[in-house]
């Protein structure tokens, strides 16, 4: 087994999680025009973890050196924004897979997983760190599909990742009903991240500047032998029925009156 980590971190540009999404007029998806977009929060955790693996080795806390961190995003012309953020946080280089902007969250998980398999093979990756889901489609399938396609072990919803030895033994802790479960596997490996894994850093100004000079390559799905075929068709997207608000009463008498009126007293 290789003695250095070559990490792939796929990321996605999604509507900022603090913004309330609204459904577009055509009811085909959510409104994305003029809405603040950011890096998918779970992907932020994956990048942070990859960077920490590198720092841990430097601080002699991890036995394996990180050779390279590759960030990758499939999306429209603004996808490089989140790739720059990823590189400002510490990724070394980035691939932008050019796919058209769409209201339904882009290519399906299987397409992305197949494309990632191509990247893993071409770039000789031995660890893939993915967010457990993107908060736009909430599919939560890509990591698992990728592991299946590659025939690699997978550890999902990681809350702790530890490299145990130079041979590439990795221990991953994740939360299960009523406790935590610790898994051990050998590289190569697919890990998906959960919220408790770490606290992502801020992108510092010097690193934002440096990130501009890091290599960002533009690629297409075809470069990895994949086509954007869809198996699912979105028929209609609608908002859940609005919750009826409660009423306000002036004082105790008002409350009692209201309760009597409703037959509760």
């Amino acid at each position, binding site marked *: 087994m290789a003695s250095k980590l070559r990490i792939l971190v796929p990321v996605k540009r999604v509507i900022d999680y603090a*913004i309330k999404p609204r459904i577009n007029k055509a009811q085909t998806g959510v409104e994305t025009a003029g809405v*603040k977009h*950011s890096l998918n929060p779970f992907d932020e955790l994956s990048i942070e973890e990859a960077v920490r693996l590198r720092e841990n080795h430097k601080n002699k806390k991890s036995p394996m050196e990180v050779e390279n961190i590759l960030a990758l995003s499939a999306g429209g012309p603004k996808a490089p924004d989140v790739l720059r953020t990823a590189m400002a946080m510490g990724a070394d280089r980035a691939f932008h897979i050019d796919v058209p902007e769409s209201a339904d969250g882009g290519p399906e998980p299987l397409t992305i997983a197949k494309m990632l398999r191509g990247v893993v093979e071409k770039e000789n990756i031995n660890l893939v760190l993915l967010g457990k889901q993107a908060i736009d489609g909430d599919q939560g399938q890509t990591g698992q599909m990728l592991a299946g396609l590659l025939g690699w072990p997978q550890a999902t919803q990681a809350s702790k990742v530890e490299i145990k030895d130079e041979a590439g033994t990795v221990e991953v802790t994740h939360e299960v009903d009523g406790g935590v479960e610790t898994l051990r596997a050998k590289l190569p490996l697919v890990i998906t991240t959960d919220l408790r894994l770490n606290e992502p850093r*801020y992108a*510092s100004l010097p690193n934002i500047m440096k990130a501009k000079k890091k290599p960002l390559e533009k690629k297409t799905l075809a470069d990895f032998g994949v086509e954007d075929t869809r198996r699912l068709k979105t028929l209609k997207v609608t908002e859940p029925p609005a919750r009826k608000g409660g009423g306000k009463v002036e004082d105790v008498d008002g409350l009692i009156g209201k309760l009597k009126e409703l037959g509760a007293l």
Partner: protein
Amino acid sequence: MSNARNLSAALRRARVPRPRIHLRPALPYTPLTTAVRSFSVSSTVWADKQIKYTSDAYPNVKRDPNFGELTAKDVAYFKELLGSESAVIDGVTADATDDIEPFNSDWMRKYRGHTKLVLKPGSTEEVSKVLKYCNEKKLAVVPQGGNTGLVGGSVPVFDEIVINTSRMNKIRSFDTASGVLVADAGVILEVADQYLAKRDHLFPLDLGAKGSCHIGGNVSTNAGGLRLLRYGSLHGTVLGLEAVLPDGTIVNSLSTLRKNNTGYDLKQLFIGSEGTIGLVTAVSIICPPRPKAVNVAYFGLESFEQVQQAYLQAKGQLSEILSAFELMDGRSQGLVKESTGNKYPLEGEYPFYCLIETSGSNAEHDMAKLETFLENVMGEGIVADGVLAQDETQFQALWRWREGITEALSHLGGTYKYDVSIPLSDLYLLVEDCKARLTEMGFVGDDESFPVRAVVGYGHMGDSNLHLNVSVRQYNKEVEKAIEPWVYEWIQKRQGSISAEHGLGIAKRDFIGYSQNDTMVKLMKQLKGLYDPNGIMNPYKCI
């Protein structure tokens, strides 16, 4: 972008599958809800230690013997007039100490009155009738909004009746074309801003206490806040007012016009007069369109000279999109860290920090300007380190480092607050001089035997407005004497203002002479005498 500060953040958060509750430490993505940001009035009532009465803390302030004493008959009149039970908290004929306490004391636990009656009128007409009655009976009153003031202006000193505006909380109208909002005085600032957010507009005022403060109180105290740099003071944005004079006269100048040069601009009298002339019942204010792109950067700097250089650069390169330039000293950030337990945004520690916000209409244009600016200040070594918020969560978190200072200080004990305006070059010198003075006098130290915990400075750099805060373990007359009037003399020497945005209240009324000459004070007193001949409006305060 404060639409994200509301519930929608929590709603969106709920889409992420929830981890088990019992395993839940501080999550990096916990949204900052309004409850965390604001000072709620109810939290000021601590059971463990009583707040000292203002009348004991200021023994030279005597109750005006001309004022009437409240009787059961008066209370009966008010109950009859206001009808509903929730409109009167009666401590005259019944024991209502616990219910009245939040209205008697301020959130800093510094001022406490003896009132026995709280009235919550529901309309301007009711306010008019209440004031008319009080004026006839010479009953003194204190207008009170969210009670988030910093100079004790909104709480009674003796037995003044509290007239609270919380039941007047309707938004009356909003015109999308002109951006003019007309709303009752008791509308909470954040509620007004959320209402406007849905209509793509922004309240031109923003401050830390936005979750509690009322817009009527904001206007009466001419609150400045975080975005004055961009949107100007309330003297400019308020287009009209409705107010009630002590004799019950309703002053209706709720104009929605930007231009109106017809005689004296009397509404200005009510802006910043701290309820000493009349009680503001409604406000008409012009609101700017909500910016579509907002960015926040947080810097660490090595010296105050560099802070000034950074400000000059920001003004020059970000000019029309710059919406806030805030200064925080290292000690203030240390206190926020201590009280919140959060990790510093920057790796190293610096003596000064700045927070810059830009608001504009086009994210790409703004980012291009911001990046040029950042490259410049980093390249020239003006800024030692810095971060740029990459998403809404980080945006909120960075603002917390500025807005959380007041709250952090209040967690640690008492604070002597000085809100001053000084020419920019001397802005921070005041903090250094004050610290040196108190240290020399042996007040400052790290353990419990020293009364002073820390001397910190922060503020609105863009408005030359500094908040000098002396954090104390207990309020202590000796410390107070060491600071006052020294600090006022210091400011007077530099032609500064002893109260830039907090007002005078009871805390600074005796010091008005340091920033206003005798003629000005005389004119103010004449106006007060003209509109409030019996002096019932918020007595013992302001002038």
